[in-house]
């Protein structure tokens, strides 16, 4: 009936070649190169890297700063992702209401923080919480809530909370938009059937909206894991690169950056990079497993 012959010229390969060249140059080569120098001691100068075997990896496994940075990153990420999901979902449900007026305005307002660059937000927050003359301190003192300026960056809880809240503020609008798209994809019949059966809004949310959005929630958590584990800009700027107080806000990428570019340990910096790569791979694999398990909801 139909000819089984499909034209298989080699032109196609030429067309996709530029992509592979760029991939090889900017992604694959740097990864391989990082792995190569992670076995060396190198200060980044023209003196060639010195091969030191697994020494860097031995150091990494017992490195208190690295282990601390993993813990810090997770704590601050959880402090951000949980409220981010709750607010994103809540606002998406509210702003998906057909009869609500001014929806467009609020969607825009809530999404706005996400289009500001991280560095600008970091700088803004730095000035807001600055001790002793930051705006928040001045405000709290003017209203008589505190008598002495509060040093946010010398309290572990306050410093971590500041970073988590900042990231939440930047990202809940993004989550909201994704959830709204998810809600739009739920067949209207489900809602109609529920309404006909006499379900109230709360029951509709728990029994229809939320279960149908489960894959979307998982998608968001997975993408956020990658973003969260590579957290850098905001804590770097707010804590002036140090991850204070006492390295309790030092993230993995900050440690990598400081080791490599502020302390010129390129070899060990690459080892931290490999460690980070492995950790992200593990967590993403776990997250994907969970998603696939729940694929039945799709």
């Amino acid at each position, binding site marked *: 009936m139909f000819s089984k012959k499909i034209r298989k010229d080699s032109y196609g390969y030429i067309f996709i*070649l530029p992509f592979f060249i760029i991939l*090889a140059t900017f992604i694959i080569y740097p990864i391989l190169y990082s792995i190569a120098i992670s076995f060396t001691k190198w200060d980044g100068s023209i003196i060639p890297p010195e091969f030191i075997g697994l020494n860097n990896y031995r150091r990494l496994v017992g490195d208190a700063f690295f282990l601390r940075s993993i813990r810090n990153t997770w704590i601050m990420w959880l402090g951000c992702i949980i409220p981010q999901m709750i607010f994103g979902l809540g606002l998406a449900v509210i702003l998906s209401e057909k009869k609500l007026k001014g929806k467009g305005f609020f969607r825009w307002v809530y999404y706005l923080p996400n289009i500001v660059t991280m560095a600008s937000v970091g700088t803004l927050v730095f000035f807001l919480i600055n001790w002793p003359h930051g705006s928040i301190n001045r405000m709290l003192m003017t209203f008589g809530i505190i008598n002495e300026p509060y040093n946010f960056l010398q309290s572990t809880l306050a410093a971590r909370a500041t970073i988590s809240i900042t990231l939440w503020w930047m990202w809940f609008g993004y989550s909201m938009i994704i959830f709204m798209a998810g809600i739009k994809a739920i067949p209207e019949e489900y809602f109609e059937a529920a309404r006909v059966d006499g379900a109230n809004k709360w029951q509709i949310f728990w029994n229809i909206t939320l279960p149908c959005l489960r894959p979307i929630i998982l998608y968001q958590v997975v993408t956020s894991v990658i973003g969260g584990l590579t957290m850098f800009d905001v804590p770097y700027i707010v804590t002036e690169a140090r991850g204070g107080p006492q390295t309790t806000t030092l993230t993995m990428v900050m440690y990598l950056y400081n080791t490599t570019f502020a302390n010129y340990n390129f070899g060990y910096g690459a080892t931290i990079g490999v460690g980070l790569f492995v950790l992200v791979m593990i967590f993403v694999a776990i997250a994907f497993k969970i998603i696939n398990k729940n694929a039945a909801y799709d």
Partner: protein
Amino acid sequence: MKKHHLKRTFALLMCAILMLVMFTGCSQPAEAPVEEPQEEQQEVTEKSPEDFTGTLTFWHFNNDEGPKLAEAFMAKYPNVTVETQITADTDLAYQNKVTSSIRAGSGMPDVYAAENAFVKRFVNLPGGFADLSAAPFNAEELVGNNIPYTVDIGRDNNGNIKALSWQACPGGIGYKRDLALEYLGTDDPAEITAMLATPESIIETARTLKEASNGQVKLFVGTEDLYKVYVGSRSVPWVQDNKFTIDPKMMEFLDIAKILRDEGLEGGIRQWTPTWSAAVADDEHMAYAIPTWGIQWIVAVNDEENADAGRWGIATPIPFYEGGTWVGVSEQSQNKELAWEFVKFLATDADHLRDWAKATGDFVSHLDIIDELMSDNSFVNPTVNQNTYQVYGPMVYEIDGNLITQYDDQIRVAFLDVLQTYLAGNIDKDQFLVNLKEQVQADIPDLIIE
């Protein structure tokens, strides 16, 4: 078959590309350009400034200073063009630019600058600055009139001169005369010097000031200003024989800083922040650490209204130094003769240095010019109403250039970070030392830390 063939061809092609890219990158970082022996052996003949022609590229990190240096050179060498490129060192941008260009083996300018904080690292970077002690530069023959400490800092670990500086940066305590007169009863630099001469007298003066002003005026803007004084007046470098060493002066600093913070005798403002700059013009913070260049770049620029009003005075209770900029010829330069002429002009040309001192108020490193300006009573800086050469001049011989090590900036950052936690009362002095050593060890793993 054809499909397999194509697959194989494609796979081979990809492998070839990958290998090519890898080998290109994995090849040894570019060797330092080999200096042409002919050039080295060439005798430098006496030329007049007009005889020099060509274009130089010059990297600097300060927009206020870099272009002025180039302009001064071009004014005397009319046939030379200096193309200045400024990269601020915010987040180490300048340092990383220089380091990566040296590593890449190309892209370096003919002449580049290094600041006190990182000059020792730069002079020891292989492939960075050319050896100025060697022929044809023979810098050793020219630096006899330069302040020894400025020359020593520009030497690498083998003792070769790699960079030179035109300025010296002894420091004093800059204070607002009106506040001193009102609350301390005098604005005389000699009397203020006596009031700040010892840790005990600093605390006593700070308490008097607080009491007299009903808590409105603090002695120092922040502890970091006092840190500069103490760190500059150490007698032991941070690193000795590859061992991390804490000078007893720094422990003395810890004690005094804690008292000042706990009793609210200093403003707690971090240096170089906008609040710190704004406080220069206020009536609430009396004193800053002011090295020679600070009169212009800390006081005058932040208190423009009083820049010529002599509102400030400089006391010199504890000799210290801070900052300074060095310049050297890049090993990659293809125009080393002209590049050296530029460096030589900036650091050793007496006429230029006299003009530079008079035009900018900078404290130059040329001993003859220092003597000349010290004896000129009419050479008064309007910002502080003092002859700055008479104020800072006696200190230049007390500064030890060997105090600087290539690790100083990393240690400074670590020290100030842990200091904030100590001053906030979250750790005691013993824990301060533990945390500091832990941080320094993590930052510089090669150091021996006991």
